[in-house]
């Protein structure tokens, strides 16, 4: 039995320590907000936070996590100022097209804004360029991050 702290709740899971976190989230715990994209940390669709840092759940063995807190899109606090700003910006600029990559994009954007509340274009590109979007909404994502940063002023 492994003990995981996910979205502030303790979870006991009976899995091999090699199991990727994404499998545990989706198949064991039924938390489906985090998406499977490529499975090799190349696309960012499965981005969650570990200790507040954006990580890829698909190649993060649960045995490596220990007591570090994990948060997923289900668990973000809608009253948190950064979360509120990101949600408002995403709606205002109608960022989403098909939406499959967006849980990962949003988690990456929240992690970025927590460390750099007013990021430059270069910082946004660096932090989010490993989150792929097949619909090509990159320009709207970048604009929405600036929009959210403006709301955080």
């Amino acid at each position, binding site marked *: 039995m492994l003990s995981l702290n996910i979205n502030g709740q303790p979870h006991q899971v009976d899995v091999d*320590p*090699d199991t990727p976190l994404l499998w545990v989230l989706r198949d064991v715990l039924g938390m489906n907000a985090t998406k499977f994209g490529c499975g*090799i*940390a*190349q*696309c*960012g669709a499965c981005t969650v936070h*570990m200790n507040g*840092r*954006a*990580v*890829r759940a698909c*190649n*993060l*063995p649960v*045995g*490596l996590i220990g007591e570090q807190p994990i948060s997923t899109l289900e668990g973000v606090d809608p009253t948190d100022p950064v979360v509120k700003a990101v949600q408002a910006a995403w709606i205002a600029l109608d960022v989403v097209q098909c939406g499959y990559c967006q849980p990962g994009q949003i988690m990456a954007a929240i992690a*970025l804004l927590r*460390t*750099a509340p007013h990021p*430059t274009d*270069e*910082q946004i*590109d*660096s*932090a989010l*360029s*490993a989150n*792929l979007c097949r619909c090509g909404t990159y320009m709207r994502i970048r604009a929405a991050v600036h929009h959210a940063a403006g709301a955080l002023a």
Partner: protein
Amino acid sequence: MRNLMHISSFLSGMPRALCGALVGGVIGAATMFVPAPHAHATPLPPNVENGRYLTRAADCEVCHTAEGGTPYAGGRAFSLPGIGVMYAPNITPDKTAGIGAWTDEQFVSAVRKGVSPHGKRLYPAMPYPAYARMSDKDVRDIRAYLATLPPSSQKTPANTIHFPFSIRSLMVFWNMLNGPAASYADDPAQSAEWNRGRYLVEGPGHCGDCHTPRTRTFGLDSSRALGGNIINGWRAYNLTSDRQSGLGAWSDAELAQYLSTGHADGHGTATGDMADVVGHSLRYLSAQDIHAMVVYLRSIPPLHTAEDMLEGTTPPAGDAALPQNTRGARLYASTCAGCHMADGTGRQSSFATITGARSLGADNGRNLVQVLVQGSGMQTATGVQIMPHFVGGGLSDRDLADIASFVMTHFTTATPHNMEQAVQDAKRAN
């Protein structure tokens, strides 16, 4: 005692159980008459736990297991350019396919002298010149541990060695030039830790087999011991105490962490064959033994080698902006930053922290290119850590070359040259 050895070789033709009982009886009788000061010379009963430990310290499993195969059942191919292909034999206790029918003396002779039963000479892909540093007692313990494994009837494929290397008896001359050393007596001028470290590094660890350059007769060049070498296309780095090209600038704690886990921040992660060495061998060694190896490695006189030089520069920590003005930088951002971040720190595990790693720049990025082309995986206490290879995933040779050039110039002060050629060479050799 000499008589005892004769008796035991005479007995070797008898069934093992009977032989064991007789030898045991003779030893028991002998012990009673041996004066106390010489009592240590009496063979001790085998210590299976010590054998298991040393089997790991000697990393027997990695070579004697085919990829994905039964552990110790042999079959791993070793391709030696110009010489041929040889296969590591089955060393499980199966009586016909394995070594179950061997006597302990035959086993000791194979491991320490390179002579298998019936006088067949082993090729030095088996590092018997290093294992000769082990004591008979330790080798017998290894045998005792191997005898506890489940027997496998897997047959070892026949070697395809070209003439004249196919004449095994010629190994006699090779052994005269490069042959097995004796086990060494402890050096009383050095600490117990140093002596234990030397035993582990030079004996079971056989570090020099990869890290020491070879002479024209393929023997280890003792004048450049542990001075770095190229093996299977990878650079096995200089382990001497030189500050710029060896381990002189590493702290004891960093070195111990690297040996026992395969990673030390500021020095990167073990890849290639070294990842296997850590994953199957070094990580099982006790903290005292790892410390002893560090003590010994510290005492290797510095030898400067240009190929192992790395003057690293490290970009600022955190989600720093990545320059996106070159193809390599853009490819790094989309292909590598998912795990290695813009600043080279591991996104979710320190095993992916690459800053300071010698592989990033030394020897024109040789190991960097190797890991891009071949990938690397390492068994750790928290699961297998994988770096996938990037061949055939829509990236051209030029893309890989541009990524390598960017990594070399962004994270180190190295000057890449002919990287596309380096990528093609690595792909051809793989």
